[in-house]
């Protein structure tokens, strides 16, 4: 249970950072975000993404535009808001600090654990 919670905590912060990073590349659709996250092995189910996006949007980090789709319903395309851009810049700095901190703390232990490498990404 303790392990699970730590993982959750770790992944949660990183997930938001990654989502913001993906969206920062340009106007992005939810399924594109998921595709990227899946590639990064950070997220496996789509359902988790929507609450996160909504929360980021409500915090003013994101906005979205409705775009008509050729097949299916209109899509929400997310873009980074100004606030989001600022937050992302701060997070970039924080991440660099964290990366250094973790690397230093682990030292040359070089853990084989997949979970840990995930977090180090």
């Amino acid at each position: 249970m303790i392990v699970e919670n730590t993982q959750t905590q770790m992944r949660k912060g990183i997930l938001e950072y990654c989502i913001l990073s993906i969206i920062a590349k340009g106007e992005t659709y939810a399924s594109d975000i998921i595709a990227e996250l899946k590639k990064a092995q950070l997220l496996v189910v789509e359902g988790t993404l929507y609450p996160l996006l909504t929360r980021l949007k409500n915090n003013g980090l994101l906005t979205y535009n409705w775009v008509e789709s050729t097949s299916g319903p209109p899509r929400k395309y997310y873009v980074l808001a100004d606030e989001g851009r600022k937050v992302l810049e701060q997070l970039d700095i924080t991440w660099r600090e964290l990366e250094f901190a973790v690397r230093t703390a682990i030292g040359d232990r070089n853990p084989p654990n997949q979970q840990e490498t995930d977090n180090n990404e």
Partner: protein
Amino acid sequence: MNKTIIININGIVFHIEEDAYEILKNYMTDVKRHFLNSADSLEITGDIENRIAEMFSEILTNENKQVIVEQDVRNIIDQMGRVEDFDEVYDDEKSAPNNAYNYNTGERKLFRDPDNHLVSGVCAGIANYFDIDPIWIRLAFALSFFFAGSGLILYIILWIVIPKALTRADRMAMQGEKLNLQGFKNNLEEELSSVRNHLNNLQQEAKPLAYKLRDFIGDVVHHLGLFFNGAGKILIKLLGIIVLISFFAMAIALVVALVAFLGFGEGRYNHMFPFTIIADEHASRIYIVAFLSAFIPVLFIILLLIRAIFNTRSLNMSIGTTFLVVWILALVMFITYAVKASANFKDGGSISQTINLKAAPGNVYYLKFNDVKYLSHDDSLRLNVKGQFNNMTIENDDDENTEPQNVTLHVERSDIKQPELVETFRARGRDDEDALLNARNTKYIFIQQDSVLKFDDMLRRTADDAWHGEELELTLKLPLNAKAIIDQQLQDRLRLDGVNVYDCKESNKQDNATSAVFIMTDDGLQCKIDTVVIKKTPAQIDSTRNANNAKAIAKLQAQVDSARRVDSLQKHK
């Protein structure tokens, strides 16, 4: 071949198979419930629905088909993730203290238990919390319902306040580890504050409250549905089966009645009312149509009940139509016969005849009931003459009681010295002539044996024909001052007009007597009230009687006594 349902997601229409729809619906219900505590629930679920719609569109275009099947829905749910998988990431503000708490203690928390619920899982949750069998909590709640419903209110409050264990973590926290005393105290404080927070949230935030209420109402409806699907359905089915059994019994009774009437019952029930008017030549046809017009509706109800209870299609269209046609035909025939039978009652007719009676010695008449069973007319007459009070007589059996009481007896004052009996036969028929004929085709047995007048209680038809409302009115005319000693049995069997033997007996305080004494006065027949007997004790009666011997009334009294003695002697034989 499968049934499809048309659904609409964000304005796009999809055809989806029924079982696939069920899965999707349950999934979306779970999703909605999961995000209920969030203020953004509508937006999140909207996004998810939208995405599902998009995936449906993709599937339909890619696979070039028209209908969403179960496997498609399963694939989409796998992609979206189960509700349980959502939790790990989306435990935002709330999760931090919870997790910290979990690090430290691993103690149990109060949740509604959705796995072990009877209604909403409140009792099971409480039982989990205290690690006891839920039955005790349920019992306590059930008992407390009777204290002005206080338990019910408490239950509903708990239902609203205690969160449902949705996630795996919730469930683990709910089951927890065994509580020690210290842990229990901490936990309780923790819980109380959490409940307080919960209530505060309810008060402060209108939106979550609305969601809560929606959840609560949804929950209530959901559980009511479960109840009626389960226990309620069983109760209703049991009730239905009981009704079904009673209708089966009715159907069987109808069949038995039909067989009885057609087979061997005819003669036996001829005397009872509805059957007496049925002419014999039509009898079996009437029985059959009457049976059909009663049996088919009963059968129909049985089939309907079977269909309702066991959810089967027990009646196909053509059989149903046939039944309906047969029933209407039977009903029409039955009504026709009924009209025909009633036509036989259209006109009335009557004939009278007067029988001169012999004057009885001492002007005393004994009016008795002729309790002889007539085997045949000749036989009975012969038997009657021979053995009125002997063992040879055969008493009327009780079956005859079912005959309509169609003999009325009046006792009137005669203008002449001679007593006489006027017999007025009445009957009905389809016309006057027929009515008269019917009236004539009857026979009544009246016998005079000196001072004893014997009346039968039956008017007999000489022709073995249907009953046409035959009636007999007997008018017995007795001379002035004649004494009539009327048997109690006569009152029981005939319609006695203007005379009541029981009342008279009571007035004379002779409740054990089998007859009462009446005297013909100018105003008709009056009960003779024996003032002497009432006033004096039995020991004094003789002396009083001797003293009053000169009086005419006492003379009569003596005759009465002797008559009684004779009467009782005959009885003792």
